[in-house]
């Protein structure tokens, strides 16, 4: 089920009713775990089995790794967790992609191969919970944490419903300690949790789905007809859409968790105010970028083996990060572009070192603007349905023509208005966050803002669109 649904509203009310009733902490955890399985199974019941498999595998493998007497045994355990989790992901997510590319490769060699038709359904959230579960075993292997003593706590860590289908990707070291003692939610946490939920729904339902998605759909649905203005506006619309969609989901997840006293790390830290790409990746989908850094980039060697190796590690990490998002070459291209940007940034830093004007306000704004513009270009490949149409639109962005061909002026104003407000908001909150700004608003002002947001969420018409990251 999705956060922006009546079903979730009823579900949450029931869960909270049980959670705040006078039951033991263990009983509450059991109830939340069952609720999490219901939450996941409500999408397609048989796929709960995959969640159980992933949970059981990593529970036993972590214990095996921890108790292993030899390095060989430890490595066996590590290999088993990688193979099993990545195998699950590989089959369900990349099975068709690998097969299509294999067929294309054989055709290039002059061999016509027709494989049997495989209709593989992508289980929702599999990219998230496999990474989640795997990180626990990896942390045990790397000595960052000890195996959890309670299977209940571990199962809850894997399946906790606020973050189950689209993150944030939790770390066991952050979540498991919170399971030990009963969570006590303060009134401020409860109030702020609901506020985060409403803010998230507003971002998703009103901004992403209602205001921006139709504009992006129009342009990306007709890439060949788009003028440069259409292409840029459509891309700006999508760049805002994906932020509000995904950050909205994360905000809902954080808010719902906070209602039960669980504290998650922030997953988006105003990324469009980033100055440079390293900064961008410290602000965008933080739980994924830090996962890739800690479990891929650093183990590959990070920046410890010279410049050439650093660039290779960066590029590999970003290419695989792109592939994580989707089984298609245009996602890989998206990751590759980001890899190239990161490499370019390192080269520039190395060549010019600290430059005074960079630290001035004007310099920061210029670099932030440049970062945002270059990030928007990468979104073309992320949103386009394939490489070819992405290339067409990218080309359109850099031709010289005036006027709109696909979009109307009103749509253009909406996109420009929302984008400008978003960028301004990101810049204002880049250091201190939303909570800090919210603290300055008088209590009745908070009420009015929340009421307006809630009303718009309820009254917004249009199609229900799945959260973009559900497809990953």
């Amino acid at each position, binding site marked *: *089920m*999705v956060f922006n*649904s*009546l*079903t979730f509203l*009823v579900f949450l009310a029931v869960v909270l009713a049980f959670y705040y009733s006078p039951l033991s902490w263990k009983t509450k955890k059991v109830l939340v775990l069952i609720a999490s399985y219901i939450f996941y*199974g*409500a*999408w*397609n*019941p048989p796929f709960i089995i995959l969640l159980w498999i992933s949970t059981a595998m990593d529970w036993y493998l972590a214990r095996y790794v921890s108790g292993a007497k030899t390095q060989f045994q430890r490595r066996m355990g590590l290999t088993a967790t990688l193979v099993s989790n990545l195998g699950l992901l590989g089959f369900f997510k990349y099975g068709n992609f690998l097969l299509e590319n294999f067929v294309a490769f054989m055709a290039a060699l002059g061999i016509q191969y027709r494989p049997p038709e495989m209709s593989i359904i992508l289980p929702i959230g599999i990219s998230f919970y496999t990474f989640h579960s795997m990180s626990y075993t990896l942390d045990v292997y*790397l000595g*960052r944490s000890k195996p959890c003593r309670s299977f209940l706590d571990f199962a809850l860590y894997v399946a906790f419903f606020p973050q189950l289908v689209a993150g944030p990707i939790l*770390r066991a*070291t952050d979540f498991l300690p919170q399971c030990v003692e009963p969570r006590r939610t303060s*009134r*401020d*946490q409860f*109030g*702020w949790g*609901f*506020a*985060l939920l409403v803010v998230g729904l507003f971002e998703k339902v009103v901004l992403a789905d209602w205001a921006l998605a139709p504009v992006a759909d129009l342009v990306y649905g007709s890439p060949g007809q788009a003028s440069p203005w259409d292409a840029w506006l459509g891309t700006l619309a999508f760049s805002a859409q994906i932020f509000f969609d995904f950050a909205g989901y994360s905000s809902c997840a*954080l808010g719902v*968790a*906070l209602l039960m006293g669980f*504290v*998650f*790390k*922030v*997953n988006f*830290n105003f990324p469009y105010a980033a100055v440079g790409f390293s900064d961008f990746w*410290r602000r965008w989908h*933080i*739980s994924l970028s*830090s996962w890739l850094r*800690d479990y891929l980039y*650093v183990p590959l060697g990070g920046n410890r083996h010279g410049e050439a190796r650093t660039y290779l590690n960066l590029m590999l990490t970003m290419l695989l990060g792109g592939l994580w998002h989707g089984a298609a070459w245009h996602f890989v291209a998206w990751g590759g572009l980001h890899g190239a940007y990161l490499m370019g940034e390192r080269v520039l830093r190395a060549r010019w070192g600290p430059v005074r004007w960079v630290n001035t306000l004007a310099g920061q704004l210029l670099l932030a603007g440049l970062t945002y513009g270059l990030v928007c270009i990468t979104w073309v490949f992320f949103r386009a349905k394939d490489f070819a149409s992405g290339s067409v639109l990218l080309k359109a962005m850099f031709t010289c023509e005036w006027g709109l061909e696909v979009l109307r002026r009103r749509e253009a104003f909406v996109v420009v208005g929302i984008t400008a407000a978003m960028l301004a908001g990101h810049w204002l909150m880049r250091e*201190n*966050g*939303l*909570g800090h700004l*919210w*603290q300055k*608003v008088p*209590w*009745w002002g*908070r*009420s*009015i803002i*929340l*009421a307006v947001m*809630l*009303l*718009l969420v*309820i*009254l*917004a*018409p*249009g199609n229900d669109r799945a959260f973009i990251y559900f497809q990953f």
Partner: protein
Amino acid sequence: MIVRSSTSNSDQGLPAGKWGKVWLLAVGLVVLTLAGLEVFWRLNEYSPSVNDSEDLWASVRHQVAPASIVLLGTSRIKSNVDSDWFASEVGGMPPLQLGIMGGSPVPVLEDLADDPAFAGIAIVEVFQKWVFNWDSPEGKSAPAAEQTARSYLNAYSTFRVSPAKRWEAALRVRLQSFLVMANPSRVTPKEMLKALWQGEFPEVRFRVFPNRHFRLEKHYDPPAQPAPDSAIPSAITDAAFARLAKAVTKLQARGGRVIFVLLPTTGNERRGEDRFPRPHFWNRLGPQTKALTIHCDDYPELLRYATPDGKHFPDGEHLYTDDVPEFTRTFARIVKSKLAGASRNGVGKAKN
């Protein structure tokens, strides 16, 4: 190895104080506003209307049982034939409304033909341009109507495996049946502002019921569309007939029945149907597919509604609300006698 934390926690910088008052006021404002809007729309004669979404269609499709009667077609069958009135005439469970506004019935018929669990009666309202697959430049083309139908079928394929979708559809139908404001597609915020500010209400008002029947509540004048002069090549229909025959044969082989129906229309809508000369199109439908057919011209009791003054069809194809019960009962009697004449158990014995 130390894992650097580049993030803050969701409760850092936690805004503190007076959250009880904040939420009390916020919820109060929302409830008052929604209640006020509900009263405003009701005073202006708006009634609750269910959102006629793909999920609502899927929820009805999900109810199809082996001996169900299903209504396929376009907005014409959705507005002119009411399931409850149909059942009141012939008995048994009301037919399930699977008509799709702007959608071709052919993919839906094929879907039912491929469903071994269905062996009931499919009443297929024919909009000839789409059923005979003519990609004309005027209006919505057959491929586009086919695509619309396919999107509904895709929604159904997700719906049938997802309890969450089923629960959501059920909750929404219940809420939207009681509250005007529960269906935001009915009156968008922009229309709301126009109505509140200028007193200008949306022109077309119709109401969709949980059984997916829709009713025009107010008259509107759609723009007149000139009928094209070009003749339709007969060759393009050979593939269409073959496709229909395949679906009908499959369904009827396991005891089902298909009835193709041409409902009465007036004005430009009738001229649009008349572009398909009956000897070359409609008259071939029964013999080539072995399905039963009901053409409005053969039944004066149906044709009497097709008056040129727009007394019954304000837009040429959708009946006024007051005409629907009698029209439906008349139609139901014709269907019943057609089936009886085809030496099959009567419609009244069809059980869901």
